[in-house]
């Protein structure tokens, strides 16, 4: 029981870094707000102060093509997750697991090849 607690306490360092990471930008921006002069004018609040007037929202409807890129990302992200435990336990697993992992990667490489052949990877 002691060992688990000691190990978990190491995460206090992580929590401290997390809090510092949140507090630093908050503190810096608050200090900036207090220190800077505040003289608002209508022109200052446009997106491009000396440029073209922006129109519409920036959140427009996207092409399906971008969704495929996101899906490719998810699939190869999952593949990466399976590589981690294999790499960590490689010494104990040996040759058979290497072959299994090769099958796994080749399987997904076929998918990538198919995507390539279908010109999904082409950026327009």
């Amino acid at each position: 029981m002691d060992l688990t607690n000691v190990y978990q306490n190491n995460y206090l360092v992580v929590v401290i870094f997390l809090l510092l990471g949140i507090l630093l930008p908050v503190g810096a921006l608050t200090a900036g707000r207090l220190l800077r002069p505040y003289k608002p004018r209508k022109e200052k609040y446009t997106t491009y102060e000396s440029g073209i007037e922006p129109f519409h929202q920036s959140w427009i409807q996207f092409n399906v093509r971008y969704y495929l890129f996101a899906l490719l990302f998810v699939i190869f992200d999952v593949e990466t997750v399976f590589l981690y435990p294999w790499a960590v336990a490689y010494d104990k697993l040996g040759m058979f697991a290497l072959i299994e992992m090769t099958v796994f990667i080749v399987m997904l490489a076929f998918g990538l090849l198919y995507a390539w052949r279908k010109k999904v990877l082409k950026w327009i």
Partner: protein
Amino acid sequence: MTGEVIAFFVLAIVAIMGGMLLLHLSNVVHMVVALVFTFLAIAGIFITLSAEFVAAVQVLIYSGAVTIIMLFGIMLTRHDDVSEKKQIKSSTLLAAGGVGAFFLLMFFAINGMSVSEPATNLHVDNTKRIGELLYTNYLIPFELISVLLLAALIGAIILAKRDDKQEEKP
């Protein structure tokens, strides 16, 4: 109150707040950001359970990849209109009753649950042990996952490509 309990409650509150904001925000993109907070809090809960590999997967897959695919899914649709505030209907009251009944059920079930001796060495080489089990005992599910991923990839490509050809014809 131990630090573990405090950490659990903070993370649980962040997770529930994320879920509540997800339901109550009116802008779809803000909803996804609220969902990211829920995912990250759940990753933190996994860490308090000494399941670090699962926590890393949670951050990598859920708050990284799944969020991106949700955002792109939103970007595909028309999403410039905001949802309207709803009036309280009888269905809302029914749902509230269901939630209350579920809470009571869970409360009494967890209260009456007896926990056996908690495991003490969960944090020792947990990624390595996952690897050893996954590539010896659970090989076939692992290989099936590759087939599943391949099917998802090819299916998505076929669907999206068919849309392209229909656009070209007229």
